[in-house]
């Protein structure tokens, strides 16, 4: 089942690869069919998932490279199942959002589908080497998506993205090998119990290695500098998946590996992570204020939002960890939606400068309304999904003994900033008289509305009924909190 979810997009990649040039316009249909089928599979998986259990489900486990102890092991628990579903959903929406791509479409959609293989795989892998394989697999299609279909500085942004994340992940590779040498296994589930036996000094160093690997991806200050470039230059679908799924790979790494495997390492890093998280919250928000480009504003807001996820992780409490998971999912939905909306505006006006845009509400009320909705969800308005994660992360951090109270207070200020820069952006872009660029532009069409409709629905459902999400994550997070002694 999971193998199908992970590798089904590969079928689409192969179909796109053999597509004759004259039929290249069929690529998007192949991509849509593949991702839709994948989403259906993911839906079936979620529906038949036993949310009460903290154990791995849908497990596949066979030898892959027995000589090196590497296994082909897949499985999901309450931590990874929602992320697999998120990845399946956002990829399909990304395909819909890319409907008008006509520059080498077969190549483009093949890369989107290949990206999905990597993303699904990261969340489903239970063997550390397999995890690393998928982790690195993500780099290649994203490199091409940015470098081939991106904005004016795309090649620079693509290389920067590639080298930055590669730099982080090679340290993770050292950590993977070191764990294997110390504990004799690559299995993530086995490591979770064994790692605690390591001497605390070893744990400290290993935690540092994994921190580099994961924190670059999240990203946290000061390892975030690749993100604005990559986000701004990437095509809409690339930004959606970057923000919606790729960043989650970082926080997922902390939750899946760093915390359960290295509890003592976590204990000694806890305070530092909390400081970095809060700094990222405030820094991301402050920089967002200064942006003149809407896309860049949302990109920096990601640094701020992911800071909340990191703060939840740093708390080590069940509430905080659940909060981190909720931020993961919610940020995927809201920021994904924001990037989709910005893409719609850009498709029409060919600008993302706040100064050039105004009066969207008068000219294109549907787009403006959806944009306002996404912004409200993103800034954490109660009743929408963004609030769940931020609230629980802060609550968890407050409860935690390892995170100082003043840090939490500064973090709360971050929520305030978040509301402020989003509202200010809305005020300038949505309100007022339509600028000459905005005037005469058509409103959202049916395809565009269908693209964002599932996101709107999920944002509301999760926002009103927290349990819809938390019943999945809670058993796994409670178990994890016990492991790290939160």
């Amino acid at each position, binding site marked *: 089942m999971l193998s199908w979810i992970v590798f089904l997009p590969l079928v689409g990649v192969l179909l796109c690869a053999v597509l004759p040039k004259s039929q290249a316009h069929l690529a998007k249909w192949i991509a849509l069919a593949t991702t839709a089928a994948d989403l259906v599979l993911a839906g079936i998986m979620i529906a038949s998932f036993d949310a009460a259990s903290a154990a791995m489900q849908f497990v596949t486990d066979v030898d892959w*490279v027995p000589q*090196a102890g590497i296994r082909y092991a897949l499985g999901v628990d309450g931590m990874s199942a929602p992320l697999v579903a998120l990845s399946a959903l956002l990829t399909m929406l990304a395909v819909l959002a890319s409907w008008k791509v006509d520059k080498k479409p077969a190549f483009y959609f093949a890369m989107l589908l290949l990206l999905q293989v990597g993303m699904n795989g990261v969340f489903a892998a239970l063997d550390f080497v397999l995890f*690393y394989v998928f982790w*690195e*697999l993500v780099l*290649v299609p994203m490199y091409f998506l940015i*470098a081939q279909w991106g904005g004016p500085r795309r090649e620079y942004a693509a290389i920067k993205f590639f080298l930055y994340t590669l730099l982080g992940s090679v340290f993770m590779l050292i950590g993977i090998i070191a764990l294997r040498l110390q504990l004799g296994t690559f299995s993530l589930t086995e490591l979770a119990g064994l790692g605690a036996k390591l001497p605390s000094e070893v744990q400290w160093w290993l935690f540092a290695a994994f921190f580099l690997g994961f924190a670059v991806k999240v990203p946290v200050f000061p390892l975030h500098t690749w993100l604005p470039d990559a986000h701004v230059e990437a095509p809409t679908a690339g930004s959606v998946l970057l923000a919606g799924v790729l960043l989650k790979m970082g926080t997922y790494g902390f939750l899946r590996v760093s915390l359960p495997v290295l509890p003592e390492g976590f204990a000694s890093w806890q305070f530092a992570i909390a400081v970095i998280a809060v700094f990222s919250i405030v820094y991301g928000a402050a920089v967002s204020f200064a942006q003149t480009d809407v896309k860049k504003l949302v990109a920096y807001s990601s640094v701020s939002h992911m800071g909340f996820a990191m703060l939840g992780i740093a708390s080590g409490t069940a509430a905080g960890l659940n909060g981190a998971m909720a931020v993961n999912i919610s940020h995927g939905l809201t920021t994904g939606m924001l990037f989709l909306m910005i893409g719609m505006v850009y498709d029409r006006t060919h600008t993302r400068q706040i100064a050039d845009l105004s009066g969207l509400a008068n000219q294109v009320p549907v787009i403006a309304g959806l944009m306002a909705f996404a912004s409200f969800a993103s800034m954490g308005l109660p009743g929408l999904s963004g609030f769940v994660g931020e609230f629980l992360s802060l609550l968890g951090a407050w409860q935690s003994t390892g995170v100082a109270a003043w840090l939490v207070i500064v973090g709360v200020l971050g929520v305030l900033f978040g509301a402020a820069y989003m509202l200010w952006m809305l005020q300038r872009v949505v309100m007022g008289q339509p600028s000459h660029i905005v005037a005469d532009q058509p409103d959202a069409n049916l395809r565009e509305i269908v693209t964002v409709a599932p996101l709107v629905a999920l944002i509301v459902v999760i926002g009103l009924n927290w349990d819809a999400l938390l019943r999945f994550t809670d058993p796994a997070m409670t178990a994890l909190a016990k492991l790290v002694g939160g």
Partner: protein
Amino acid sequence: MTGYGLLIPELLVLVGVAWALFASALPGRDRGAAIAGAALAAVACAAVVVQPAGEALFGGALAFDSTARFARAGTAALSAVWLLWTAARGQGRTREATALALFATLGAMLMSAATDLVTLVLAIELATMPAYVLMGYRRERVEGLEGALKYFLLSLLTSLVMMYGLSFLYGVTGTTRMAGFDLSGAGVLGLLAVLLAFVGLFAKLSAAPFHYWAPDAYEGAEPWTVAFVSTAPKVAGAVAFVRLLASVAATAPVVSTIVLVAAVASMVLGNLAALTQTDVRRMMAYSGVAHTGYLMLAAAGAGAAGYAAAVFYAFAYAVPSLGMMLLVAEEGVLVEDFAGAFSRRPAAVWGAVVMLASLIGIPPLVGFFGKLTLFQAALGAGFAPWVVVAVLTSVVSAAYYLRIVRASFFGEPVAERAPLAPSVAGSVAVAMCVGATLALGLAAGPLLGWLGTAIR
């Protein structure tokens, strides 16, 4: 299997040599010789694969352990792919190139099995002598001859240095069999012996700080000859290196430090120097230095796992490197010659992406498993800081390998240049390298098991 039957693969290669030497009197002439050579090398590879492990021959001068089997098969396979390409391309006097390459292949196969100093030296010379000629293959091109001459003189010098060291080794221990060296009481003389022998070997493997000949020699040579010289003998070179290392490491632990220093220097210098190259041959020369550094890092731990990892990595490097150099021979030697290649030959460029990704160490390609096993060996030997250097430099390598990718996809084609028109058999040869890079990665397990850990 016992006795001389073990040498059937080498005999097959020798038949290929003979065919090429008398090609003017045989059907098919030039091209026929190359085709026959490719076929015979392929059969030789298959013959090694089906051969069960055998007893040592000639009183222990040649060992037929699993490592030898791996390296002999790998060398023959690389040689067969290269000859297939050459047969398709016909670079002029093809029969000479075929004969030379097969001589070198024969030498490399014997080098893989050599466990006696005299046999080793003879095998190394048999493997490198034809390479001198291949590197200066276009005798009418003066700059090519300069590179070839440099290669010849330096290689001769390093051979002499190595032999000088080996003669001390014999003098101190009284034997030429690699199993029997005991340097524990040899003092300074033993150190001198080891130092000289390994300096020679470092230069042959183009390890820093004795690598300076490689970029100039490669730049002067035709890219298709570089494709052979820089890859096919590499696996055998790695085997000879670890065999000699294993034979002295127990009683002269200082050798481990010597190798480690050279390894770190190679990784750093090779990758940094490759960063600024505009000629792909020079880039591959420097990156070859770096890859040699990686494999030496694993071997420096002086453990069976490290030796096996080093040999495996040599092969994991050689396969994509051969394919890349063959593409360079078709597309042009400068990075900018690749500009616009994607619109001309999308399949070939995708192949290049796969091979370059493997050289960077992106999973699940063969290069990743090479790096995984060797980092594992090096970490196990307690070289954690040097492994950090290794992974950092491999990120640097991504920067220059990506320049080729970038030019291929996004570069503006240069107008006044004419890449070779692709030929079917030539593309098949490159495709075999790409396929092997992928397949050996996905099936790294069986391959690692087959290689075993014979050298201890």
